[in-house]
């Protein structure tokens, strides 16, 4: 092989290596942007998480039809990025006939939770039971007193 032919072969090989081939030309492109996300934590009033509960999301412009769905994880948590619409987003978490609805006001600045359920303490609950029991006892005694009065007059 002459020197000229060797140079030609080398040039062809170099061109082949440097030229991007269609089969190996998948370029990776990334677009990054910030977005508002909502993190839900669903649990029963006993403190037990609502594991694998279904979540229905309603957008501000259409509170009747669901905007999206999701499922909570084992700890009753779910995170997702909202759409661009500002306003009141609604989230319903439900499982076997139990559930709750929460509303989130999304503004241009940040989402603000405006309504959610809160578990009562045992002290509050016992106080309410005691009040109802007191009312029932009063009702019972009132009825008994009236009955005794009626019997005495008869």
């Amino acid at each position, binding site marked *: 092989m002459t020197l000229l032919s060797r140079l030609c072969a080398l040039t062809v090989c170099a061109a082949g290596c440097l030229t991007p081939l269609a089969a190996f030309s998948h370029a990776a492109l990334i677009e990054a942007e910030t977005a508002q996300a909502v993190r839900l934590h669903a649990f029963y009033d006993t403190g037990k998480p609502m594991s694998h509960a279904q979540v229905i999301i309603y957008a501000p412009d259409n509170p009747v039809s669901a905007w999206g769905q999701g499922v909570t994880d084992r700890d009753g948590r779910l995170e997702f990025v909202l759409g661009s619409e500002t306003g009141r987003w609604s989230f319903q978490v439900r499982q076997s006939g139990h559930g709750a609805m929460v509303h989130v006001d999304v503004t241009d600045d940040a989402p603000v939770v405006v309504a959610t359920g809160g578990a009562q303490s045992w002290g509050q*609950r016992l106080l309410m039971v005691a009040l109802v029991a007191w009312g029932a006892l009063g009702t019972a005694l009132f009825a008994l007193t009236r009955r005794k009065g009626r019997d005495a007059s008869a």
Partner: protein
Amino acid sequence: MHLPDGIVPVEMALAGYACSAGLVAVALHRIKARPDPQAEIPRVAMLTTVFFAASLAAVPVPPTTVHLMLAGLMGVMLGWFAVPAIMVGLFLQAVLFGHGGLTTLGLNGLILCLPALLALRLWQQIGGRWPDLAAFGAGAGAVVVAIAIFAAIVLTGLPAELDARAERAAVQIFALAHLPLALAEGVIVLVLLRVLRRIEPRLLPDG
């Protein structure tokens, strides 16, 4: 086992109110026809409190948690008085504890009042001959019937966007978890009526 607000369609909630209002009207009519309705008020007041407080007694039955319902006990002990007593108890539970919704109060009333009346019917039919069997059947049967009504309402009112298969599976697990509760409530009614028979037979319901 109370339906919260927002779980069922508005039409179902309104139908629940209409049906429970009819049931309360019938119950009040039957109560008024009794010779001395006021004589029952002390017992009704005390049992309403027991029913109201019972929903706080949560018992973990993996993978869920159940709480006492006492519909069978209310039906057997109070007769037709059980209907207004349960409705008042449910209203207080919804307002004070957040157990059940106000929009679903009618449906929740049906879920517990109908089993209570069935328990009463069972007690009246066979309580005289087999009091223990009737008491256990009334307590346990009321839980089973209540679960069946609850499941029927939940599955009928499922929104289209929900995964119906997953919800059905969750309801089945929830219903199975209530079987121990059914046995427990059967034993509660059985023991209570036995104790009353020995200590104070005058307090026993009409069999």
